[in-house]
């Protein structure tokens, strides 16, 4: 992500017409970024972009439906915007998109696993694929490719797909991308029994904090999420494995054909449950059956909201 100054200029130019522009700023230390809501020109100064800007800001858009909003998006974030537009959950007329090209964002959990919790981070420098993290007086050097988010390993869309302003030059990089995430390949080798036991174990750790849901740009039900209602009463509020499992199933099924794989659920999960594994696997089915990927084409139709009389990839029932 480059072109911070260019971005600032563009935002300043557009700000008079907008109620708010959402970007990122530094959080409580140099390693943590946090969303920034720009309302006044002076707020723009705090804006940052770069590999720390992991948050998918599109998550805020449905809540600001009636406001004039500007938003800074990476490639994956822009897919969420497109999907929301497709589903008429937001109105394009009210939105100004500042599109970026992205070289990947960091996964703080991975960093933490490598170097432990270092307390206050003073400085973070990215240079030629190496991150240098300074805590106290010590420098820690890590390969960026080892600590970036899983989704970046397989990212096909580094550039914002939909924008009003594009910052910098689009990246046409196509090499170095893994066709499939390494976790999927390994997961697929597991037997059904092992998978079942695996999820049972994972779900037993879920604390039902709903962070995954709250971080998800496509979870637009919010207060009306069926996971917490009595009518319909899908699951109890008891934190047991079976109900946790059911909750995650509800989340996945509600994302069928809609999930843009921004990874926010997994990033938000305090228990580090591999939620993206479920979503990637579901999306694989969607691709196989409907040759469809969510959040690519603003005019596209989510596959479960339409049908074909003769489906191309659904075999006739044999019996």
């Amino acid at each position: 992500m480059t072109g911070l100054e260019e971005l600032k200029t563009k935002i300043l130019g557009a700000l008079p017409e907008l109620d708010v522009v959402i970007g990122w700023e530094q959080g409580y230390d140099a390693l943590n970024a946090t969303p920034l809501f720009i309302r006044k020109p002076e707020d723009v100064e705090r804006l940052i972009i770069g590999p720390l800007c992991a948050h998918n800001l599109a998550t805020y858009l449905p809540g600001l439906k009636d406001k004039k909003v500007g938003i800074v998006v990476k490639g994956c974030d822009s897919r969420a915007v497109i999907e929301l537009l497709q589903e008429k959950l937001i109105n394009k007329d009210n939105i100004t998109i500042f599109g970026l090209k992205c070289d990947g964002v960091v996964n703080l959990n991975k960093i933490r696993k490598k170097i432990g919790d270092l307390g206050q981070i003073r400085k973070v420098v990215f240079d030629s694929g190496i991150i240098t993290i300074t805590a106290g007086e010590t420098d820690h050097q890590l390969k960026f490719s080892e600590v970036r988010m899983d989704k970046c390993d397989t990212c096909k869309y580094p550039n914002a797909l939909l924008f009003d302003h594009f910052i910098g030059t689009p990246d046409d990089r196509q090499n170095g991308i893994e066709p499939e995430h390494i976790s999927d390949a390994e997961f697929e080798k597991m037997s059904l029994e092992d998978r079942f036991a695996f999820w049972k174990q994972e779900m037993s750790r879920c604390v039902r904090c709903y962070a995954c849901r709250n971080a998800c740009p496509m979870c637009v039900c919010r207060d009306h999420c069926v996971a917490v209602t009595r009518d319909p009463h899908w699951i109890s509020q008891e934190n047991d494995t079976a109900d946790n499992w059911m909750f995650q199933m509800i989340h996945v099924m509600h994302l069928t054909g809609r999930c843009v794989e921004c990874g926010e659920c997994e990033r938000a999960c305090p228990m580090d449950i591999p939620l993206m594994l479920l979503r990637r696997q579901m999306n694989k089915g969607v691709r196989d059956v409907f040759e469809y990927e969510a959040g690519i084409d603003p005019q596209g139709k989510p596959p479960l909201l339409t049908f074909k009389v003769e489906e191309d990839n659904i075999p006739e029932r044999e019996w």
Partner: protein
Amino acid sequence: MRIGVFVCHCGSNIAGTVDCEKVAAAAKDFPDVVYSDDTMYACSEPGQQGIIEAVKEHKLTGVVVASCSPRMHEPTFRRAVERAGLNKYMFEMANIREHVSWVGKDKELNTNKAIDLVMIAAEKLRRDKPLISKKFDINKRVLIIGGGVAGIQAALDCADGGLEVVLVEKTTSIGGKMAKLDKTFPTVDCSSCVLGPKMVDVAQNPNITLHTYSEIEEVGGYVGNFEIKVKKKATFVDWEKCTGCGLCMEKCPSKKSFDYFNEGIGTTTAINIPFPQAIPKKAKIDADFCRKFTKGKCGVCAKICPTKAIDFEMKDEIITENVGAIITATGYDLFDFKKYAEYGAGKYPDVITSMQYERLMSASGPTTGHIKRPSDGKEPKNIVFIQCVGSRDKSVNRPYCSGFCCMYTAKQAILTKDHIPDSQSYVFYMDIRSPGKSYDEFVRRGIEEYGTEYIRGRVAMVYPVGDKLIVRGADTLAGSQVEVEADLVVLAVGAESAVGAPQLAETLRISYDTYGFYMESHPKLKPVETNTAGVYLAGACQGPKDIPASVGQGSAAAAKVLALFSKDQLESDPQTALVNAARCIGCYKCVETCPFGAIKEIEDRFGNAKAEVIETICQGCGLCSVTCPQSAIQLQHFTDNQILSEVKALCPSMMEKS
């Protein structure tokens, strides 16, 4: 809630393989069940009375009946519950006959299964809410599709009952198959003499609007308020001007057009009135044969037409008709006899279909009623009739009996003797099916008085030798092979569903069987209803039928429509979707998927986008409920919670398996 459970023995139908007392006893332990008993025949008057008394005595607020399929008696019990003073939707049924006692023999397992089914019915009932039907106005016009004898009868009966009728016929004249017949069985009276006056009545009845050479393009709306788009196909003749004088037919130079009315026996002119008694008696140009269309020049008819009715530029036209009910009387078509290559059908000119033979015998036919065989115009002396051509034949995918061929063949053999006294008719048959008033006597008369020779067996092949056709068949009664030297072979072709029947069914949203015949709502008790409210069936579109049966159904369907229209308003089924506005976020996914356009986009008083169901249009499929992620739209009586309660009852999460 206070639930009463009634477990029906259905004589021994259920009690034979289900321990009904045990089921009733088990139900006592279910939540909210305060009363449970078994009963001999729940649907009988005493059975219903028992339910009503129990409701009153035990202050029941909901009723479960475990008996037959709800598709059988749900309406019956709903009425009983209503008589008991409850809302009729506070009722659920457990199907322990069709789904239990009749399909399993192990009494212990059956009983256990029946208990489960009662349990889920009770669980669902606990979440039922009283529902009140909405009323809406009816448009008291009726659309009748098909102008054969069934459609004509239905049209006349409806019109006599004071209804406005729109009759749509796909050919240029009404009359259907019956108009082509020479005589009818078993009375041997002249078909067109019987039908003709009825056709004229249709033309003259001020209540009937007739659209011939027209087809149904689109059907929208619902019972009481259908909107129909009718395509009036271009005839290239302005019927407002055409007087049916027939001058154009005399002058038309294209005299070898296919004669559809005469089944291709003989030819007609490219501009033609199909037969002299046609209603309406108007000319149409067959563009496949008209020289103006095929060669670009001619136009003789336009020049000589006294009223200048010819219009070569005419285009198809779509008109809209609004009606409250629809009667489908689209009839049948005849089996394509060419599929019987072993009979030389379509290959040897003197092997013809029974309908072609009708035209050969008819005084209005191409031979003015003189039976002449197509090849050389000679009068045939030996005539062989082969039955079951395209009936009872799995190898051509027509395993069903067409029902009327035995009778018309008997008739044709008798008429043959009348036409040609020194002729001999042979009928190859498998079984003679003549169950009808005076039908079998008629067949016997053919055999005994007219000397028709019946030979019990199928025919394997027909081949020509000289100017004869050798028919080689079997006489299974004599146990031998037989050969007949015939001058003419008539194939008694069976009935199959009309061309385009499945497509029309889909337009009408009614179901049809494997063979394209329309499905009645109940094979015994609702023979002219369909499962789509406001759409009725008459005649052979439902299955092969002879004239009296078709006429009977025409009248029956008309009676159904008259009964429907006897009220000014209809009640809609209240088991419709309902939006919980508080939860609706206005994404309108439901609007997108609703097959009926029954959901509209509205704004609440704060200007928030919301969805709202039009109850009278909603058909209650529940597609919207699944589409809505926040479950803001719920199909009443099949809510998420109701289905969930059934699932949870059957699969209680914490249950440990041993």
